[in-house]
């Protein structure tokens, strides 16, 4: 007896979004990285098209991150003091995209200036040919000030600028419009909120193929399944033809996985938790692979070994 595999015919398709501009496109990247384009749920290759694999971005910082786990700092070594060197190391570790995280202050004291932000962006652009994601420090005024300057400095590079939120998106979107960049739109784990922010941003005139949505993720053990379910629902809505959900999704898994006790704390935890470093790497890897299964198009990671493992996972799922 033959088993007939049911095939769902979806009417919708995820929008293709290309990050980074090559010389022909007015930028300096060696190649662009495209995400989206799916006409089926994650990895159901028999059912529809999945033209691009999930992309791994590695997070680097404009200065040695003060709040990172010593395990991460150790894994990267000296490069954490030099964004350009770090970007190169990240590329070697398997990154397809680089996230440059801007800080609020230098050495926890003087504010990072517009000139600082522009300089570090330039250094990273010069150091690697990968498309670049740039996140502001996460404070409204600083985000707006620094990201506008970065957008100007890297005009035409099709950077992915973030993070737009419902209460603060206008300035960042305007900068992206003016200098041919893209934006990420972050909402708090809710299908409707995600749609609303996408509508607000596209209302300003930014085409949908320049928006990536960040539905907010959580780490394994910290509400990951809630985020998973929201991402799954967003993707199903997209495939059902709901236009404002048809954007690729980005998740900051490295940030989420590395702020939890299981990855942060090495001493004074139950023995059953096992060896610290392995546990921490597993935490990031599992968070990443799970959210990839729920439809993540871009995963922003931190540890090179977790990146390596996620890569193996992606390759297998893509049938390589």
């Amino acid at each position, binding site marked *: 007896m033959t088993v007939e595999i049911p095939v769902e015919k979806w009417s919708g398709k995820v929008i293709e979004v290309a990050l980074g501009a090559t010389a022909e496109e007015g930028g300096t990247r060696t190649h662009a990285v495209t995400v989206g384009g799916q006409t089926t749920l994650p990895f159901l290759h028999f059912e529809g098209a999945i033209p691009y694999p999930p992309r791994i971005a590695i997070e680097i910082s404009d200065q040695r991150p003060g709040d990172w786990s010593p395990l991460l700092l150790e894994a990267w070594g000296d490069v954490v003091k030099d964004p350009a060197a770090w970007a190169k190391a990240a590329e070697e570790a398997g990154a397809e995209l680089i996230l440059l995280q801007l800080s609020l202050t230098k050495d926890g004291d003087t504010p990072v200036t517009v000139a600082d932000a522009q300089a570090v962006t330039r250094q990273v652009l010069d150091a690697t040919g990968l498309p670049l994601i740039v996140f502001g420090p996460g404070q409204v005024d600083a985000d707006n000030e620094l990201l506008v300057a970065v957008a100007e400095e890297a005009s035409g590079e099709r950077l992915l600028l973030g993070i737009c939120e*419902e*209460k603060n998106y*206008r300035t960042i979107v305007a900068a992206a419009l003016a200098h041919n960049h893209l934006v990420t739109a972050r909402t708090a784990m*809710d*299908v*409707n*909120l995600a*749609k*609303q*922010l996408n*509508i*607000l941003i596209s*209302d300003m005139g930014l085409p949908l193929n320049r928006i990536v949505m960040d539905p907010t993720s959580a780490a394994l053990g910290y509400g990951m399944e809630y985020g998973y379910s929201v991402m799954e629902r967003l993707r199903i809505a997209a495939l059902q033809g709901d236009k*404002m959900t048809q954007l690729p999704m980005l998740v900051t898994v490295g940030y989420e996985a590395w702020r939890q006790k299981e990855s942060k704390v090495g001493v004074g935890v139950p023995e059953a938790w096992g060896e610290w470093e392995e546990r921490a790497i597993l935490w990031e890897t599992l968070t990443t692979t799970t959210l990839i299964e729920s439809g993540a198009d871009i995963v922003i990671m931190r540890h090179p070994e977790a990146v390596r493992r996620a890569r193996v996972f992606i390759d297998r799922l893509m049938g390589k």
Partner: protein
Amino acid sequence: MTTYKVRFLPQDVTVEVPEGTLLGEAARLAGIDVQMPCGGQGRCGRCAVIVKEGNVHRRPTQRLSPDDVAIGLALACQATVVEDVVVSIPPQEKIERKIREGKRAARVELPFPYDSHDQPLRKVAVTLDLPSLHDQTDDWSRLQRELARRYAMRDVEVSLTVLRKLGRVLRDGEWTVTVVLETDAWDRPNGPPRIIDVLPGERLENLWAAAIDIGTTSNVVWLVDLLGGRVMAQAVDYNGQIARGEDVISRIIYASKGDGLQDLQRLVIETLNRLLQQAADERNIPPEEIYKVVVAGNSTMLHLFAAISPEPIRLMPFITTVNQLPTFPAREIGLRVCPEATVDCLPGIASYVGADITAGVISSGMCNMAQELILFVDIGTNGEIVLGDCSWLISCACSAGPAFEGAGVVHGMRATAGAIEEVWVNAETYEATYRVIGGEKPRGICGSGLIGLLADMFITGVMDKSGNINLNLPTKRVRQGEHGPEYVVAWADESATGEDIVITGVDVDNLMRAKAAVYAGFSVLARSVGLTINDVGQVLIGGAFGQYINVEKAIQIGMLPDRPYDRFQFLGNTSVRGAYMALLAREMRHRVTEVGQMMTYLELSADNTFFDEFNAAMFLPHTDLDQFPSMKEFLEGAG
């Protein structure tokens, strides 16, 4: 126990109270009414008084800044007496006593052909055989004998109240007496007749009764002559309980403290007695000649009316003490009508779908319409929603909050003189023009004005679809205010208060929540029965506030479903009208009960789709624009 003296100015009244007494309580003992719109929870700051001499113990509150405290301000509902003090009460914002000026009560038509025999109240005049030494039958037996002989009435019941006056009435009327009786009442079918009152002589010219609606905000009395069935006088006023809390939750909280329950009952009975007197005066009768009262109101209001603790209504799992109160004589609660008059409170369905809604459904005529899907909405502080075609009915209550009644909005106010009731924003200049009730200088913005303002700010781009005010516009009307971005509706030199009248981002947020709660209620109800809101044939809008809603603007902000305008009908106060109909005919009274039994109640707090629908509705007009086809066309045409 240590006691201290509290002297109140400018009244110059001194009371002596035990240590730890609340200033508000001391004021009450001094006979001074300090308003506590939030129910004495320290949330609203409206009961602030100034401590002139001595000191009080203050509890921390966000309502008073350190500067306020420095000049002696204290919240009467929070501060307690710890030594002798002199307290000055600043002039408080008086509750407007007039509900919308220049609006005469419309004449009420008979809702259906009326026959006085369809209702249980009767008036008969009988002349008794004169007593003599040969016929020493007692007065009561003599009356019974005559009622049996003339009207075949047996086993007639009488109360002590009536017997106490019987002897005098019989003699004053020279043995002709008019008897008011209730026969075959809905709750005592085929039961014996009950005498409600006796009057000397023949007094058959009228038969008075009243229909009452106890709203959280307004109370309404209709005086009805049951001989012809017509409404002969109307009276309306704000519920006196407002001074103890604006919404039902504040009142429930107030009722649960000390003698709060009795205080709230007293306040509503006082209001009703005043209204009954006012209506009776209009017809030149004493209110004691009102022999029956049918009451509608939400469940909390009816509990307070009967002095039954409403506490369980706000606690999980949100149930009332009683949905159908038994009938009782008016004297039991001090209602100033005939002491033995039957008070009949209509049945509610649940804590937040009360008798006002069962009455509303009856009076909306929902059940007389063709097989069409009807949405009945009563918009007040709570939005109650009923969906059905009368072979089935399903209802829910959504807490819209008092934002559209002017509370929780910086310059919000009720629809009285001085309220901006309509606003237009110019799409090019962002200038505002408005219309004020009474044509005077504006003091604030009422619900209809707020809906119009929200719609125009959205349509003209003063704010985005999430309600974020755009500070980048080339106009001085948008600015960064004390509490974030705001839009100036009227400049200080145009206003009656001498202050700019503004709407803030926080106000917009509150209004968005209110409208989203209402619309999410629609969506959840429709979805629960496998329909969409746009399957609705007719939208019936009840509630006093409903009358003033501009449908077009309410659709623009996504508060009402996007149906053609001719599908909307405004019914005014459907609650009092339902009580009136129940008064006129037993059949209607039975139908109210049937509606109550037939209606399914959907508890939104137990429904896991409500949050989703609410979030989807927290957008202008809605996250799913396809639900608003006319707005979609408009917005896409504009873009």
